[in-house]
């Protein structure tokens, strides 16, 4: 069975990585393994913004996956503040129907908004955004239903409004994608 690979980019809270390793197999039916790849994230640094170019990070993950001849979906997990030059920030990025995605916990933390640290809420948010990006890999676009994990979020409040689950319309597409990977040797 083809696994879903998690790649830590930079220093990532171990609890976040462990939690994703535990819950993503429940949602995808794919075993989840941590790939020990080293992503040279400093190359994606945007000097003038103090942020990291998420598309460049995606390219780096893809190159690592190609180099390691690793099949299956890859999800980069980071605490870096992601952006692309035209947008001020991103929670994550994925190529529609691609193989690689990246998600950031940076703007999902409560203290960034002046609120008390809440590790459970952080885990929920990272899980939702990870599922969201995996949904894009499955070919799903943003969903109009605000409770669906594929709903578009531009703030943590919107992330909190949605559930860590696909709606009835998105779920079959996601399941077919996951099944496709499960059936591969």
């Amino acid at each position: 069975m083809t696994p879903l690979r998690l790649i830590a980019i930079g220093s990532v809270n171990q609890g976040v990585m462990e939690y994703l390793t535990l819950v993503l197999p429940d949602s995808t039916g794919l075993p989840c393994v941590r790939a020990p790849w080293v992503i040279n994230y400093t190359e994606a640094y945007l000097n003038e913004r103090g942020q990291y170019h998420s598309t460049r990070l995606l390219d780096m993950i893809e190159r690592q996956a190609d180099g390691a001849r690793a099949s299956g979906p890859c999800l980069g997990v980071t605490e870096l503040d992601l952006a692309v030059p035209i947008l001020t920030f991103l929670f994550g990025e994925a190529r529609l129907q691609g193989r690689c995605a990246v998600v950031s916990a940076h703007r999902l933390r409560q203290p960034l908004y002046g609120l008390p640290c809440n590790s459970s809420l952080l885990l929920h948010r990272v899980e939702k955004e990870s599922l969201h990006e995996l949904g894009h890999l499955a070919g799903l676009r943003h969903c109009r239903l605000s409770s669906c994990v594929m709903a578009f979020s531009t703030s943590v409040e919107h992330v909190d409004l949605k559930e860590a689950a696909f709606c009835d319309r998105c779920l079959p597409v996601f399941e077919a994608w996951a099944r496709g990977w499960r059936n591969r040797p």
Partner: protein
Amino acid sequence: MTAPIRILVVDDEFSVRDSLQAWFRDSGYETEVASSGKEALAKMGRQRFDIFLLDIKMAGMDGLELQETIKEHQENPIIIFMTAYASVDTAVRALKQGAFDYVTKPIDPEELERLVRNAAERRLLQKENLSLKVQIEELTPFKDIIGESRPIKEVVELIKNVAPTDTTVLIRGESGTGKELVARAIHAASPRRFMPFVTVNCGALPEGLLESELFGHEQGAFTGAQFRHKGKFELADGGTLFLDEIGDVSLKTQTDLLRVLQEREITRLGGTKPIKVDFRLIAATNCDLEARVAEKSFREDVYYRLNVFPIVLPSLKARSGDIPLLAGYFLQKYARKMNRPIRGISASAMALLSQHSWPGNVRELENAIERAVIFCKGDELLPEHLPLQRSIATEVSSGLPLSEVEKIHIQRVLAETGGNISKSARILGIDRATLYNKIKRYGLFVRE
């Protein structure tokens, strides 16, 4: 189906075109890009676009010139300009010439989303009218309210009556009777159904945090508030706000709530500007609010504001005739979810279900069936699959501390589910992150 919105992005920078094309595509918009005014006009010759995103400063034909040319080719185009801070004056000129709006680079995703959504909504209003009517007819907001008994039919009738109005609803009932389900059904059958349904569990948050959750705060409102934070009142704008456990709200927050209900506007913490909010309020409680009012721990004026249209949910015991129907519904739901070929519930198991007192109401019944589906290896649920005969008290020594009992119980459920976090959390009635934290605390196991 309404035709998708078509966007044309015109910018001479490749990275801008590339990022925005991916961004809009993910949101379901059909997007084309052009690197110059000339290329944009060529694409316009081949297809019609609903929204134009134009860079102001481009070599050759600049954004303002392109705007004029687009207006000659197409009636009422929606044009949004992208500009650097330095050229804001030019953008303002563009607005005067009929542009829809402008954004400054780099663009805040929320700002971009809002702008494009507003533009798309304007475009879609007429196009979607017909298809929305069809969708509305397809919606079945009451499908999850299961039961044929008189008490539950009366509840459904009340929901149907109140849903189309904007009246405040107070849902009362014991824990596990489905108060949130009813609130969601009211929202789904209301004209606000396409707007957010926002839930706040008032009992779960300490007073200070509840205030920040409800009202939001401005950037710099207090130490550490690096960003503006929208409150639930704002998030529910246009939709429905569901305040669960309203009986647990402090007197101070009740006073603030009363003000919002009267004036329909809020001020974020640390803010000075009042913000108009338009939401429908549904509150729920299992408390005896009248007693709280009598003992002065709940404001009488708030009580009357909330108790406009009360709906009292029957306990499962009061509608025990619905138990076979509910049990069958949950069996079907979990058998399908867990891919188990279970046909039905044996007569003896059903008798056991019907005799049980169900202090935890429908939620307890649902948990019992889910657990039974996990245990059942055959094609019929039998009494031994049900957790009703077993009691944790008989299995765990009474001399153990609470944390040890919790640890043993979690360990057992994890073993029963083969370490599946989602299933275990559902059975235990806690969320997955809480379960994960407990697993870490007790050092129980980590799935490889």
